[in-house]
């Protein structure tokens, strides 16, 4: 049976029992306004709910009963036993119908017209008491025997058996003193509904939860004490106590768990109404409605979810006409998908509509002064999409009744962040928009990382921790080169080079104005890399201890203004520690989302050759011939068990480092027979504050890593392959990673859209290696740049002398004849190109090289394989010049 119906039955049975008592009480004390209003409310609720559930018979009876009560309440009708009897009679009928409902799940058929007429007659005050036979029994204790007051002849008929229709011809009008089998049947029908659930006040559960939380803490303290004493007589009972406590905790948590479907109950109706109102055809698909989460969380996400569905229906989906034009099915689809991932619930709200209007958002951001034109031009679509999370940002051209009132996604985002969740979105023009909400299972207990800074300990919720990086201390800084990360400073601001990106850092001790622990700074510190929305931020701490399950307690009101903390807790050792709020820390440091993204639609033609040795990873996939990919592009190699591979939206995915990683089988199909899958993990980390996504390319077998001079025969006819090269003496296919990344996610590489009317920026690429030139030129061209390439610096200088002009120069460092440094010095020395921004490309990115590059005159210095960084840097350079001009 429908959960909704079960709830309704439970509730209605309770109301009915209460109604009986109240009506009887009213009869005794007709002036009791309180009882009257209670009765009125109960009947009204029943009527309202069954109208909602589509139970017409019940609704009619309840409605007629309510009419009588309205009159009584308004003082038009006096409370007489007859009036009460008639109402009680209606209540009895409601009970019958409810019993039938409980037994079969459907409203039993039956004719209520006589009863309704009787009720109406009473309501209108005509003749009811006169026509009615005086009650035979005192109506106080037994169900009254009442003849129908109005048209039907007073013919007490046997009550309608619950499910089947009553005897034809004789309207069942009176619930005569019930024959024995009837109540038994009704009782049986009610019993399962009434007996299986107990309604417990939420405060009781909350109280239990608090107690259990305390018990858990006390247990932890005991265990900590026991650890210091070996062979204690307490250890066995303590172990047992520990287990029971865990079970108890789980049990109490379970009482608070509700399927997320409860928050979705009202959506079908909402969507149906919206579809009518907006004149659209909308199909609502709900997946994972039985995914359970804490009721407190459930309550808090109801509204944001409803809002998102509204948005999707209103803004996301097109009208049927528009959809036909776009050759999509007329009826739009909104999909809600909920599932567990780690200690979190992921909820996706997806539509297959038009996608977010990037141009409108951009225009709006500009008119609202949220960003300058230059900044906007440098932003990726995904960054622009995120403007919709800013306060007061609504792009709906017309404010509709449904949404677009300017209180929109920012409120959703705030509400979700308030419960420790995160929200993100992806959108592709014409394909739709998907919102991804990640929320904790429960608010009461979270997993947290315990860290120390300035001799104080703090907890950082695990949800926002991406990774931990050990940084070399100031002593080891000189010696360490690539082996250990080290903190560098720009004008005193610490940054960290993390996999060739700059990660902004904050020193926790400094931020919280604690005394710095000089000892820790010398011996090395840890960096907790946290993700806040789309931004990454490294928090420098002195030590990292352990993760602990902590019970989050709100901070005292007098401390609420300190936004760095989201709560406090008591650790296993009994000490109180503060829980850091990474959102607050990021805000305090003015960190907003920013990222960059590359494009890859490289037309593959021509022959390229490289004289440089490149480390290549050899593997096998699909057929027997070896395949290769530049090792520098691969973030990690993984061996993933088959069981860990799940299917999400038709794509194989795997939970990887706390996230979902899409898997793309290189051979086209996933070999499900294999126990373990070898996976090449590609990372798309955007510079600095950007996000960090990964994709797994599933291959059959990883063979070897070789260093070779690459001679790639580029070929354009095979998608996914850059070309063929001789590696380790064998013809080897070199795969095009960009292609496979786009297979993983449609939005991975959004095609770069330059703001309209702006002429494409002209880029000169100076690069001696054909291989990289052929990688770079199409990539930049696809981003919307007009690209000219030269093999040597001397050729580039000839172009300058011939009067050609560019917006930016991208140059390799190591080149024959004239190297990049000399080239840039020559350019800066004078001539038409002296003021141009110049980017250095190098296979070796280290401190000394960068410094040398910059002092020679390069504007920025980017790693060769780092396409995203290059694009970001290009945008920055061009944005800056545009700004200056």
């Amino acid at each position, binding site marked *: 049976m429908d959960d909704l119906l079960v709830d309704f039955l439970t509730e209605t049975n309770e109301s009915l029992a209460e109604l009986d008592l109240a009506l009887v009480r009213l009869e005794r004390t007709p002036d009791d306004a309180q009882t009257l209003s209670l009765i009125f409310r109960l009947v009204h609720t029943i009527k309202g709910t069954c109208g909602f559930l589509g139970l017409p018979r019940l609704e009619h009876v309840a409605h007629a009963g309510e009419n009588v009560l309205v009159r009584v309440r308004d003082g038009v009708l006096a409370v007489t036993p007859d009036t009460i009897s008639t109402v009680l009679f209606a209540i009895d009928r409601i009970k019958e119908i409810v019993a039938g409902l409980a037994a079969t799940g459907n409203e039993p058929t039956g004719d209520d017209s006589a009863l309704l007429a009787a009720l109406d007659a009473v309501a209108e005050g005509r003749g009811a008491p006169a026509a009615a036979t005086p009650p035979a029994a005192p109506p106080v204790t037994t169900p009254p025997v009442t003849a129908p007051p109005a048209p039907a002849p007073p013919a007490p008929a046997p009550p309608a058996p619950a499910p089947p229709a009553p005897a034809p011809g004789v309207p069942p009008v009176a619930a005569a003193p019930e024959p024995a089998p009837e109540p038994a049947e009704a009782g049986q029908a009610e019993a399962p509904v009434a007996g299986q659930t107990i309604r417990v006040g939420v405060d009781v559960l909350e109280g239990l939860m608090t107690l259990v939380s305390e018990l858990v*803490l006390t247990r932890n303290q005991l265990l900590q004490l026991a650890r210091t004493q070996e062979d204690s007589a307490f250890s066995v009972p303590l172990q047992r106590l520990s287990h029971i406590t865990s079970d108890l905790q789980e049990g109490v948590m379970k009482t608070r768990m509700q399927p997320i479907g409860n928050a979705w109950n009202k959506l079908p109706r909402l969507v149906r109404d919206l579809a009518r109102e907006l004149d659209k055809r909308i199909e609502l698909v709900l997946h994972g409605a039985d995914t359970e989460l804490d009721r407190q969380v459930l309550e808090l996400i109801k509204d944001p979810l409803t809002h998102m569905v509204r948005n999707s229906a209103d803004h996301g989906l097109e009208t049927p006409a528009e959809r036909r034009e776009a050759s999509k099915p007329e009826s739009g689809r909104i999909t809600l998908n909920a599932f567990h991932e780690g200690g979190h619930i992921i909820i996706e709200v997806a539509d297959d509509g038009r996608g977010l209007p990037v141009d409108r958002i951009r225009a709006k951001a500009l008119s609202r002064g949220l960003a300058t034109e230059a900044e906007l031009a440098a932003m990726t679509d995904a960054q622009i999409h995120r403007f919709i999370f800013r306060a007061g940002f609504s792009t709906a051209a017309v404010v509709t009744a449904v949404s677009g009132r300017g209180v929109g996604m920012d409120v959703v985002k705030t509400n979700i962040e308030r419960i420790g969740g995160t929200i993100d979105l992806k959108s592709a023009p014409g394909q739709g928009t998907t919102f991804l909400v990640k929320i904790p299972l429960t608010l009461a207990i979270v997993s947290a990382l315990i860290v120390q800074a300035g001799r104080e300990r703090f907890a950082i919720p695990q949800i926002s921790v991406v990774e931990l990086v050990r940084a070399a201390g100031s002593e080891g800084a000189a010696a360490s080169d690539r082996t250990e990360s080290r903190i560098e400073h720009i004008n005193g601001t610490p940054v960290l080079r993390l996999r060739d990106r700059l990660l902004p850092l904050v020193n926790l001790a400094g931020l919280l104005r604690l005394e710095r622990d000089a000892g820790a700074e010398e011996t090395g510190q840890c960096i907790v890399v946290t993700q806040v929305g789309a931004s990454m931020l490294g928090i420098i701490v002195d030590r990292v201890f352990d993760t602990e399950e902590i019970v989050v307690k709100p901070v*005292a009101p*007098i*401390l609420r203004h300190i936004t*760095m903390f989201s709560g406090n807790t*008591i650790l296993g050792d009994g000490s109180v520690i503060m829980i850091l709020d990474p959102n607050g820390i990021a805000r305090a440091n003015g960190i907003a989302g920013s990222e960059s993204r590359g494009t890859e639609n490289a037309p593959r033609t021509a022959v390229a050759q490289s004289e440089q040795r490149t480390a290549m990873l050899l593997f096998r996939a699909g057929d027997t011939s070896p395949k290769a990919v530049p090792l520098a592009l691969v973030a990690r190699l993984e061996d993933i068990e088959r069981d860990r591979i799940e299917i999400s939206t038709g794509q194989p995915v795997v939970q990887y480092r706390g996230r979902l990683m899409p898997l793309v089988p290189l051979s086209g199909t996933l070999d499900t027979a294999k126990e373990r899958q070898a996976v090449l993990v590609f990372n798309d980390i955007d510079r600095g504050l950007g996000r960090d996504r990964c994709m797994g390319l599933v291959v059959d077998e990883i063979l070897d890593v070789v260093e070779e001079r690459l001679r790639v025969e580029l070929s354009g006819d095979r998608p996914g392959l850059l070309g063929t090269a001789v590696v380790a003496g064998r013809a080897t296919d070199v795969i095009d990673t960009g292609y496979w990344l786009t297979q993983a996610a449609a939005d991975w590489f959004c095609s770069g859209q330059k703001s309209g009317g702006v002429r494409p920026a002209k880029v000169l690429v100076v690069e001696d290696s054909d291989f990289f030139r052929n990688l770079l030129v199409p990539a930049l061209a696809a981003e919307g740049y007009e690209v000219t390439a030269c093999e040597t610096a001397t050729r580039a200088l000839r172009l300058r002398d011939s009067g050609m002009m560019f917006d930016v120069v991208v140059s390799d460092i190591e080149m024959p004849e004239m190297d990049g440094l000399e080239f840039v010095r020559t350019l800066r020395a004078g001539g038409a190109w002296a003021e141009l921004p110049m980017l250095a490309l190098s296979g070796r990115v280290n401190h000394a090289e960068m410094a040398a590059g910059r002092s020679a005159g390069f504007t920025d210095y980017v790693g060769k394989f780092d396409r995203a960084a290059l694009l970001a840097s290009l945008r920055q350079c061009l944005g800056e010049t545009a700004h200056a001009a």
Partner: protein
Amino acid sequence: MGTTVLERPAETSADGEERVFVTLTVADQLCGVPVQAVRDVLGEQVITRIPLAPPEIAGSLNLRGRIVTAIDLRRRLGLPDAPAGTQRMSVVAEQGSELYALLVDQVSEVLSLPADTFERNPPTLPPQWAAHSVGIHRLHDRLMVVLDVARVLALAQEG
């Protein structure tokens, strides 16, 4: 963990002739807190500092599983800090279902005082004191300042 459960002397006289106070000293001044306001008296506690908190807030401590915010009464009254290393005690009071610990130098006896020894604050009392006390009780050998717990704890409204 030097926690003592207070034995509350029965409140005498419904007519309000006698009031019961928990007495404490802060920088050698005797003060009193109405016994009804006191939930607990604690000895020296481990207090976790709270970064960025107002200076009056000494930190938070664990009282049988509840987190209690500790307020340094010396700082609240604008007095110099206690000499380093002094053992301090606290009086726990409740405000709006939150517990607060008032850090004082010493908690001493519980006194039952007749209403006729009570006087309003003399107008010359320093403002820091006047703001946090309701009046003075004249004991035979010394004076006792009656603290207004609500106002001592009303940090949030001020900040």
